[in-house]
C-alpha cells in the first residue's frame, strides 16, 4: 500500500504528460521519417523523374490511403476484415467502366467513381448491420466470402468488367503526357529542373493531392470524439457499451467510412494505371500486402501506414536491384554472391519481415511511439 502511495506521489511531481514525454526520441524518429516520405512524395516528379520511380511514388500514395483506411478497422477498432480489396475494387471498376463507356472525361471519373463509392458504402452498411454483432472470427469469414464473391463476379461478368483481362481505357486529356501545362517560347512544354510540365505531372499531382486530402481526413477522424470511442471499443467492448456507447452503431459507421476511403483509393489507382483488372485491385495478394504493411508500420497509429507502405513498396520494387548490385560487388568472394543472387529476393524480404516483427512487435511506428500492444 505504501508502495502505491509513493508511486502516486512520484507521479505527481512529474506531471504533466508522463506518457507523451517518455517516448519523445521515438516520436521524433517517426515524425521525421513520415515528413521525409511526405516531402519525397511531394517532389517525386522532380527528384525521381524516371518512369519506374513515378509508378512507385503513385503506388505509395494510393496505398497509404488504402492501408490507413484499413488501420481504422484493424488498428483503431479491432475489426478484422478481408473485404478491403473488394471496396478498393469497387471504386476502381466503377471508374474504369465509366471511362470505358462514357469516354475519357472528368464527368466519367466523377460519375463512375462516385457510383463505386456509393456501392462500397451500401455494401459496407449491409455487411456491417448484418454481421458486426457476431464474433470477430465470423465477421472475418463473412468479409472473406464477400470478397471471394466479388472476385468471381469480376471475372465472370466479362461483358462489363473485361473478365480476367480487365479493362483498358483512356483518361482525361489533361492527364495525357502530350498535354502541355505551360509552354515556353518554342511552344513546347516548359521545363522546370529538367522536368517537362506536362499532363503526366498533372496526373501525379492529382493522385498525390487527393491521397493527401484523404489521409489528412482520416487523421482527423481518429482524433475526433468518434475516434476516441473506437479506441474504447477496441480496448473493452463490453465496457464501452456499459458507459452508453452503442457499439454496433460505431462499428458499422467506421466500417462504412473505411469502405468509402478504400473505394476512393480505387478511383485514384484506376485513373493512374489507365487499366483495371482483378490482379491490380481485387486479388488476395493485395489484401495480404495491406495486412503486412499495416502490421509493419504499426496498427492504430495512422503514421505507421505511411512508413509501412513506403518501406514495403520500396522493398518490392528495389530489393532485387540492390541485390544485383551487391552480388556484382562481391563477385570475387565465395558464397556471398550466390546468397545475394537477385532471384533470392523473396528470401531476404521474408527474413526482413521476421526481423522487423521481432524487433518492432507493435510495428515500427507503434513500437517507437510506445503505442499499441507493447506492454
Amino acid at each position, binding site marked *: *500500500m505504501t*508502495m*502505491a502511495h509513493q*508511486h*502516486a*506521489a512520484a*507521479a*505527481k511531481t512529474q*506531471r*504533466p*504528460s*508522463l*506518457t*507523451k514525454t517518455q517516448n519523445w526520441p521515438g516520436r521524433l524518429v517517426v515524425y521525421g521519417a513520415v515528413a521525409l516520405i511526405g516531402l519525397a512524395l511531394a517532389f517525386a516528379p522532380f527528384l525521381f523523374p524516371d518512369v519506374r520511380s513515378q509508378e512507385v511514388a503513385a503506388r505509395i500514395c494510393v496505398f497509404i490511403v488504402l492501408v490507413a483506411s484499413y488501420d481504422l478497422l484493424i488498428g483503431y477498432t479491432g475489426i478484422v476484415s478481408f473485404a478491403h480489396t473488394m471496396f478498393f475494387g469497387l471504386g476502381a471498376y466503377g471508374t474504369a467502366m465509366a471511362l470505358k463507356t462514357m469516354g475519357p472525361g472528368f464527368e466519367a471519373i466523377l460519375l463512375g467513381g462516385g457510383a463505386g463509392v456509393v456501392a462500397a458504402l451500401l455494401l459496407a452498411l449491409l455487411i456491417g448491420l448484418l454481421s458486426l454483432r457476431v464474433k470477430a472470427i465470423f465477421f472475418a469469414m463473412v468479409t472473406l466470402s464477400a470478397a471471394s464473391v466479388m472476385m468471381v463476379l469480376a471475372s465472370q461478368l466479362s461483358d462489363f468488367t473485361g473478365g480476367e483481362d480487365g479493362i483498358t481505357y483512356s483518361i482525361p486529356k489533361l492527364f495525357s503526357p502530350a498535354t502541355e501545362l505551360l509552354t515556353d517560347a518554342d511552344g513546347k512544354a516548359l521545363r522546370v529542373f529538367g522536368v517537362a510540365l506536362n499532363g503526366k505531372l498533372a496526373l501525379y499531382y492529382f493522385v498525390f493531392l487527393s491521397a493527401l486530402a484523404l489521409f489528412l481526413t482520416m487523421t*482527423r*477522424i481518429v*482524433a*475526433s*470524439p*468518434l*475516434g*476516441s*470511442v473506437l*479506441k*474504447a471499443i477496441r*480496448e*473493452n467492448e*463490453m*465496457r*464501452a*457499451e*456499459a*458507459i*452508453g*456507447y*452503442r*457499439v454496433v*452503431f*460505431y462499428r458499422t*459507421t467506421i466500417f462504412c467510412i473505411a469502405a468509402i476511403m478504400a473505394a476512393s483509393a480505387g478511383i485514384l489507382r484506376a485513373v493512374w494505371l489507365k487499366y483495371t483488372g482483378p490482379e491490380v485491385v481485387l486479388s488476395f495478394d493485395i489484401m495480404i500486402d495491406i495486412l503486412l504493411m499495416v502490421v509493419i508500420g504499426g496498427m492504430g497509429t495512422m503514421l505507421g501506414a505511411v512508413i509501412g507502405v513506403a518501406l514495403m513498396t520500396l522493398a518490392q520494387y528495389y530489393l532485387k536491384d540492390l541485390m544485383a548490385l551487391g552480388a556484382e560487388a562481391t563477385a570475387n568472394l565465395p558464397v556471398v554472391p550466390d546468397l545475394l543472387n537477385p532471384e533470392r529476393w523473396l528470401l531476404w524480404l521474408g527474413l526482413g519481415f521476421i526481423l522487423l516483427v521481432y524487433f518492432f512487435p507493435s510495428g515500427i511506428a507503434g513500437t517507437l511511439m510506445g503505442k*499499441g*500492444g507493447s*506492454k
Partner: protein
Amino acid sequence: MTTKPSIRTENLTIRFGGHAAVNNVTCAFHPGELTVIVGPNGAGKTTWFNLVSGQLRPSEGRVVLGERDITALSPSGRARAGIGRAFQLTTLFPKLSVFENVRLAVQARAGQGHRLFIKAAKLPGLADKAMHFLEQTNLASVADLPAAALPHGDQRKLEVAMLLAMEPDIFMFDEPTAGMSVDEAPVILDLIARIKEDKARTVLLVEHKMDVVRALADRIVVLHNGELVTDGEPAEVMALDLVREIYLGVGADEVA
C-alpha cells in the same frame, strides 16, 4: 415510502439450463435511498445486477425505470436512460490513459461520441469535467498513466470515477472496495455516502463487508439461492436468525 420507486424489478428470473440463478425477484428502490444487496457467494447478486444494467436478458419478468419498461433495452440504451454501473471485476480501457477512461464516460454522458470533425480534446468542458471526477477520487496525479499501470486499489477508484462521470440517476456498485487497502477504502465509501446526499439519486450496492453495510445501508436486501429472502431496515435484517445462518454458513468472521 411515499416517493415513487425510481427503479424496480418485477418477477425477475433468469435460468441457465434448468438452474434459476435469479428466481422471481420483485423489489423496488427509491430516490435518496441506499440499498445494500447481501448474500453468500453464488446467491445471484451479480447476476441480478447484470439483469438490471442489461448485460443479461431475463427469462421472465421486467425491469422498470421510473415508469418505463426497459427490459428490452441494450446496456448502452440503459446507460443513456440513467443507469450507471461499476463492475466487480475491474473492466477498464487498459491501454488508454486514466484521464481518457473518465473522459470517455463524460463524453458518453454528453452524447458527443458520434462527432467526426472536431478534435476530441477540444470539446468544450469535457476535459475539465473529467479532471473534476479524477480529483474527487484522488486520481488526478496519475491521470496520464495507462489504466493498466495503476495498482489494483487505484483501478477500483477509477471504476468509481467512471461511474460518477456517467452522472446516472441509478448508481450500481458491485463490491467497490474489494481488494482495496484499509486506508483506501474510506475514500470510496465517503464518495458513496456523498452520492446519496443528493435525494434524486438511487444507490444500489453489492457488498460483503459487514462494517461497510452497517455504515452505509438505509435498507438491506438479502438474496439467497437466487431468491429474495428478506428486505428491510438494516437493524431488523441483521437481527434475523436466517441472515446470521446464511452468513455463518460462509464465514463467521464477516458477520462479526
